[in-house]
């Protein structure tokens, strides 16, 4: 096993390099201009715009720009934002705590809802609980987050005035009051995002459980006299978890840059909103840095998932 992990880690390095090259090419070829706002500004003569482009090396050939980026990255310089004129790593680090707090909590919430509900629904298929859970799940993922977000805002902020809907990162005070405020403003975005993801996850968990629950060895375990809980948890779940583990591994990198709409609606200064605003203003260094971190996370978590498969189902041979 450790040999396998080592080998995979070694392979990860060139594979990440390859990914970064493709990413860079895609970003360079995509249309759009970081200095587009200057285009309709009559005060800015065209020569200045062109000079800015040259200064940031936007007119160099692609391979040259990629090499510059690679060398800089290797030295720990993550680049310089065209738009904000500050270092990219400062930008990202400023937003990291909020992202982890809000988006991370919603992923956790999704898991905490999906697994129990999915498992329970699978043990009583087509019962009332199951029907209700399914219907709610369908509603959950056929409504986009921009919609549920606004619905929540209308109900909880505007009509009931219980919760603030603009997220601020500088709440004053200490102790319980501070904690209370943090939780109050995070409730809505965490719910919106968490419920949306819980909806699809519940369906997967339920389906995976249903696949396993009818297998013979489960009947064997039951007929051996083992209690329901023990059967479910020790025998069924472990085998049913393979698709679930796959999903979780796919979703965790999305914490870092995936919750774009929710961040927009609630004005959460997370990495997702940094990514989208950088993409729309063609701030390539920021986009490159964020997507590269994202790529690293994707590769890492898929590796973890592969290792977990071996543990969950010993018959899977990883070579």
């Amino acid at each position: 096993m450790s040999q396998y992990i080592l080998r995979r880690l070694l392979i990860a390095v060139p594979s990440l390099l390859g990914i970064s090259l493709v990413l860079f090419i895609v970003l360079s070829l995509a249309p759009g201009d970081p200095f587009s706002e200057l285009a309709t500004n009559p005060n800015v003569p065209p020569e200045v715009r062109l000079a800015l482009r040259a200064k940031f090396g936007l007119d160099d050939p692609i391979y040259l720009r990629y090499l510059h980026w690679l060398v800089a990255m290797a030295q720990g310089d993550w680049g310089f934002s065209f738009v904000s004129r500050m270092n990219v790593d400062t930008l990202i680090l400023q937003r990291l705590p909020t992202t982890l707090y809000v988006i991370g909590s919603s992923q956790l919430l999704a898991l905490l809802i999906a697994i129990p509900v999915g498992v329970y629904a699978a043990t009583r298929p087509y019962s009332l609980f199951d029907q209700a859970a399914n219907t709610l799940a369908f509603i959950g993922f056929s409504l986009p987050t921009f919609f549920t977000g606004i619905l929540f805002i209308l109900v909880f902020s505007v009509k009931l005035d219980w919760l603030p809907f603009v997220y601020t990162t500088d709440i004053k005070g200490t102790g319980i009051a501070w904690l209370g405020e943090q939780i109050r403003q995070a409730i809505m975005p965490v719910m919106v995002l968490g419920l949306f993801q819980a909806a699809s996850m519940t369906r997967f968990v339920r389906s995976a459980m249903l696949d396993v629950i009818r297998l013979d060895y489960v009947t064997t375990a039951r007929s051996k006299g083992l209690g329901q809980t023990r059967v479910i948890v020790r025998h069924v779940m472990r085998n049913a978890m393979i698709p679930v583990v796959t999903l979780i591994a796919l979703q965790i990198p999305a914490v870092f840059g995936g919750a774009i709409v929710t961040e927009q609606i609630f004005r959460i200064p997370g990495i997702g909103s940094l990514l989208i605003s950088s993409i729309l203003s063609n701030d390539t260094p920021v986009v490159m840095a964020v997507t590269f971190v994202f790529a690293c996370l994707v590769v890492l978590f898929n590796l973890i998932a592969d290792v977990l498969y071996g543990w969950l189902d010993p018959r899977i041979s990883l070579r």
Partner: protein
Amino acid sequence: MPDNELRTMIDEVKDGRMDRRAFVARMIGLGLTAPMATQLLAIGGVAMAQSPSPYKPTKRGGGGALKLLWWQGPTLLNPHFATGTKDQDGSRLFYEPLACWDANGNLNPVLASEIPSIQNGGLAADARSVTWKLKPGVKWHDGKPFTADDVVFNWEYAKDPATAAVTIGIYRDITVEKVDDLTVRILFNKPTPFWADAFVGAAASIIPRHLFADYKGDKSRDAPTNLKPVGTGPYKFVEFKPGDLIRGEINPDYHMPNRPYFDTLEMKGGGDAVSAARAVIQTGEYDFAWNIQVEDEVLLRLEKGGKGKTIYAVGGDTEFIALNFTDPNTEVDGERSSIKTKHPIFSDANVRKALALLVDRDAIKKVIYGRAGRTSANFLNGPEKFVSKNTTWEFSIEKAAKLLDDAGWKPGADGIREKDGKKLKLLYQTSTNGPRQKTQAIVKQACQKAGIDVELKSVVASVFFSSDVGNPDTYAHFYADIEMFQIPMSQPDPAQHMRRYHSRYVATKENKWQGTNFPRYVNPDYDAAIDAAEADVDPVKRAGFYIKANDLLWQDTVFIPAMHRLKVEACSNTLRPVISGWANESDNLHDWYREE
């Protein structure tokens, strides 16, 4: 309007026989702007009036927190690098210019001790220099004194191409010299009637020499003060997170008495305009939100909540539809919309006039812009009350249909008009934006009823307004028949605005589509008017030429103004902001206060 009449009017104002406000209003009706009108008066010898200050509080501070919501958050805090009004607004919280515009088009001094005029010797009669006197005793936030050296430094910093400052256009053609510690003189290399450009307004805020002197030219991006501004403004810098949050606190040594009112300041960024309006008007979480580009109906509904309202400021921004004078569908030497082609449909003036009759401005105003729009026939600008003698607008599907019929465009079997085998089909593009898409839908419907087939296209804003040479979807490439957007009048003087459509600035592949004349309009009379205006010293004659240019654009139907757009902001019921259509929203921040 012939210059004699203009001159007579100015004399009448000087003698007190005509009310200055009436003069300004007449000039606006003819397509000029309020600041231009007041400057006409200034050159003519009538000193600028200072509007009475609305500021009531009698002591500094005690006002608590001011919470601002800018749905496009500032991403940097150096005015010389600002890539949009949002960055200027953010910088303006801490930095200040010499003077700024108020709602009536008058200049209010900020760092200057008085406004230059002919009477006090500040303005030279030949319009080739301006002398500004600086306020004594002004200190930067770190305690160092503000002097003429700082002003001169800003000019050196910005005009250096290596700094790549976006403000270079303002500072490039002037010379700034220090007369003494509290006086600077600006020299123009040609007579410049619009002298109030350099160091005026948020875009031209002044940065401190002692902190930036080491970071001129290539090193400009390394200055630590880029992210931690030290200015002269009413609020001192506390914290900055690009795109997200700016925080400031009261400056106890501020140079204006009893100001500022608020103790702390917060500017939050991100999100969209509708939710920004909600946060101010419905839930009261914020005091002020910027640039609410939202359908008026939604706003009216929000205001029923009672915690806030929308306020409007009149500027010069016109939302227009531009017509392409070249053919976007024919490629010549690898270039579409080439100046070597003529638009097959629009070369018939009747079609252009018919199209102008098909834009239902009333409906657009009623349904979309509401209180934020005024119908206009002028490209330059013109409030509703003063319909200019020279230009009119009308909406009539029947008249348009008749015009087209008479010109030989007869409806074919599918209802679409055609002539000589050419179908009357247009591609109409604009940037992605709710109100714009709705306007498109309204125009399209009227066109369909008149027998014109319209295809709609919307392009994401960062691509539409980009200067990317290879991208066919930019407004400058204009690979469509008509396009709609707004060029904000960043300067309350028509020179730059009108100069764009001179035939020498036609956008072509050769100049990488950087030419400003994107409709590719070529008219020797227009060129002559613009050339004459720029060569003339006499500001009164100059105004006459711009009025003529505006009328030519209207006669030739180069642009169809859809709406004269006002600036719309959302503001809490207790806040008393000071907003001008000619200035950035944060330009008069020192005069804001709250009244219960």
